[in-house]
């Protein structure tokens, strides 16, 4: 294995990235990304959420343009400005969340934009159909090629994405966590296909959180951390422990301090919450002084549960109780009155009035309480806003600064301030530190911990493992709309959380 790998290092590279940098405004998503893919090899790319893997993929896909660094394909320098160019150059990307046209048929989705044509440019449906049948036979699936893709499961949509890449005859195939939503049988089938594509001399990049899959399938592995390349090694020369050490690279617990707090009476009780197709039988309790983390992969249904609890989305069965009293469905106002607060995931769209002032944003949710005889004066508003802005250390010159001009971290603080001003008993916070810098991150963590210390119950949705492990008293893990594990702080490890988040009940080798 080792010999094979080193012997393979001689042939030309299929794709090479060297010291690639990409930033979005002040946020650096990729500090220094390097990657070398060789024909006839399956290459693993691993790293925590936010390590820069997705940014790297998007650069290869032509979705983002790098700021600097080298990008070579078959030894030629390339600089894609569109996905069409990347595709034409032979790079096929299978995204974690498939993007299909819901109103069109399976066959059309596979061939859109490059359908085989005959006389007068007429689309040759027969040829399309023959090709789809051939690909599906090869993949071993019996999906109806004529049905529309609306309502297909993620697994089936994924199959269509893979079929697309195969029909594209790509020389480089990038799979961004393709197995996240597949069952054991489907994973085995996918791996068989990946191996046969490898044996045809294609270069394959495989991104996964599952170490067993990485060791099972890949021959080389590259680790990324905090937007930078760490190391590339032949898979036979490394171990899981070694990879985890490279991925984390720091002591997890030090970064995320959770103060010990007295756990009090139950505040939020959720029983058997169900919305068919989205989440099933969700039951849990959040107590005073407790931080409960809702972990899992993107798309596991965590945000949907939060939105249902807060009354933004409907649910079909189950019950939400606050302090023993039932909370009305589909009624955010009632949820707020009962002592719930929700800090959503997408700050710019859901949490902030982006064109309003910082002060206006902070007092937005408590305007009714602040008003006197239905009127609100800027004096009252400013006093209330000032208190929270200073408590959260929002870095801004004045409260009338427009929210859109703040950094991501400060925007998050403003959203937090807005909801804390409502004086909630339970705070639901979705991805509290996504897209904010490390300094602000620890401030947010300190604040959450402090709030719990004061007796608030916190339900924290997070995809970042260290954050989950460092902050939570209890970890609930969701997979495909169900809670698959409940792990106490002392027992929680990245392995058992990841295991519950990714593994289907049936195991595969």
């Amino acid at each position: 294995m080792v010999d094979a790998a080193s012997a393979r290092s001689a042939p030309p590279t299929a794709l090479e990235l060297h010291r690639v940098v990409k930033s979005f405004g002040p946020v650096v998503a990729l500090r220094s990304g390097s990657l070398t893919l060789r024909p006839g090899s399956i290459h693993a790319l691993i790293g925590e959420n936010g390590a820069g893997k997705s940014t790297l993929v998007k650069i290869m896909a032509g979705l983002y343009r790098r700021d600097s660094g080298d990008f070579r394909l078959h030894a030629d320098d390339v600089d894609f400005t569109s996905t069409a160019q990347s595709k034409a150059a032979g790079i096929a990307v299978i995204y974690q969340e498939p993007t299909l046209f819901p109103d069109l048929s399976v066959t059309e989705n596979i061939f859109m934009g490059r359908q085989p044509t005959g006389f007068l440019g007429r689309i040759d449906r027969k040829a399309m159909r023959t090709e789809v049948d051939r690909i599906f036979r090869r993949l071993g699936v019996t999906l109806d090629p004529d049905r529309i893709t609306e309502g297909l499961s993620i697994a089936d949509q994924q199959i269509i994405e893979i079929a697309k890449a195969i029909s594209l005859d790509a020389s480089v195939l990038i799979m961004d966590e393709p197995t996240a939503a597949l069952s054991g049988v489907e994973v085995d089938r996918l791996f068989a296909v990946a191996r046969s594509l490898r044996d045809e001399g294609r270069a394959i990049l495989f991104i996964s959180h599952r170490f067993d899959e990485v060791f099972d399938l890949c021959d080389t592995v590259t680790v990324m951390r905090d937007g930078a390349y760490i190391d590339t090694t032949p898979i036979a020369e490394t171990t899981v422990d070694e990879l985890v050490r490279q991925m984390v690279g720091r002591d997890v617990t030090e970064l995320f301090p959770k103060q010990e707090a007295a756990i009090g009476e139950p505040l939020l009780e959720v029983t058997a919450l169900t919305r068919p197709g989205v989440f099933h039988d969700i039951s849990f309790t959040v107590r005073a002084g407790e931080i409960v983390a809702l972990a899992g992969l993107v798309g596991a249904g965590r945000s949907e549960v939060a939105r249902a609890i807060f009354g933004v989305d409907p649910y079909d069965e189950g019950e939400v109780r606050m302090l023993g009293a039932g909370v009305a469905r589909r009624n955010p106002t009632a949820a707020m009155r009962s002592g719930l607060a929700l800090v959503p995931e997408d700050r710019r769209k859901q949490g902030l009035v982006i064109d309003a002032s910082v002060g206006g944003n902070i007092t937005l949710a408590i305007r009714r309480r602040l008003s006197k005889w239905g009127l609100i004066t800027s004096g009252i508003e400013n006093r209330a806003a000032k208190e929270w802005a200073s408590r959260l250390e929002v870095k801004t010159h004045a409260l009338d600064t427009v929210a859109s001009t703040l950094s991501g971290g400060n925007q998050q603080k403003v959203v937090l301030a807005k909801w804390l001003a409502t004086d909630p008993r339970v705070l639901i916070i979705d991805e509290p530190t996504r897209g904010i810098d490390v300094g602000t991150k620890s401030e947010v963590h300190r604040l959450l911990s402090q709030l719990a210390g004061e007796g608030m119950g916190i339900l924290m949705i997070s995809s970042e493992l260290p954050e989950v492990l460092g902050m939570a008293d209890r970890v609930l893990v969701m997979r495909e709309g169900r809670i698959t594990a409940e792990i106490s702080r002392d027992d929680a490890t990245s392995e058992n959380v990841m295991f519950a988040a990714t593994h289907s009940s049936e195991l595969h080798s």
Partner: protein
Amino acid sequence: MSTTTAPAAAAPAIAKKPGGIGRAREFGILAALVLVVIAATVKNPAFLFSSDGWRDLLLTPSILMLVAVGQAIVIITRNVDLSVGSVMGLTAYLTGRLFVDVPGIPIVVVVIAAVLLGAFLGLVNGALVAFAKVPAMVITLGTLYAYRGINVLWTGSDRINASDMPKDFLALGTQQILFIPVLTIIAVIVLALAAWYLRNIRGGREYYAIGSDPSAAELYGLKVTRRVLSAFVLSGALAGLAGVFYAARYGSISSQAGSGWELDAVGAAVIGGIAITGGVGTVWGAAIGAMLLMTINRALPILGIPDFWQRAVVGVLIIGAIVLDRVLAVRQRRQLIEARDES
């Protein structure tokens, strides 16, 4: 856990085929059309069985059919073109003007000029939508007024009359081949071409893809900007052709020609099963929708429904069509998801 094998087998027979629902919709409105014609004919046989009645049944909808086909293409891309009435007005006036100012000009040249002007006005719409990234509804609402303004400026209180135009041209508006008006034959040929293009050519399929999910279209590497632009050009060109038809049919063109037609066109498309959110529907549906809309307008007075209520009936028809589509879509989604969860 769903498997890849189960959904296809378990999913109910509904809407497994692309356009399965669409085809049902087209038969539905076709049935409604037949019903209206039968009802009106029973009440007054002249509605169908007189040379005037027969001609009106086919001729008047032909013009709207053209505009509705263009509108349908634009709506399929998840846009809308509210300026088509004004484009019709301008091209109709251009048609008359050319006959007055250039005596003896061949009819073909006039038709080409009008279609080109329509295409150009559509290009302006498309360019504004595609490059300024402003919703089509706002842009084309603006050009609706702007184009009409240009028309008023150009025409003033002038009016082109039938006597200003050559006999051969006006004959087009009334001539029949085998009892079918010439304009209807042309409109159906255009309709068939458009339908064939939308079904069988890459560009046509891309209209559906863009309307179905614009961001996925970007990921697929489709040339979204160029496609959307072309949809507006097509819509403009068809409105231009409709302007020529209008001139030939009515023989009298003022600065208000074609005003209000944009709403009829959108209405026809929606009644015909074009989803206002894009990606679904066929131009055949839109054309039958146009036919139904015009025929109902003519049939209601015969059926003794007061003038006042006629517009309301059209409104009910449009809202009914949208509600029906919505109900069907929700039911279909639910069935597909249930089929998945059960498997």
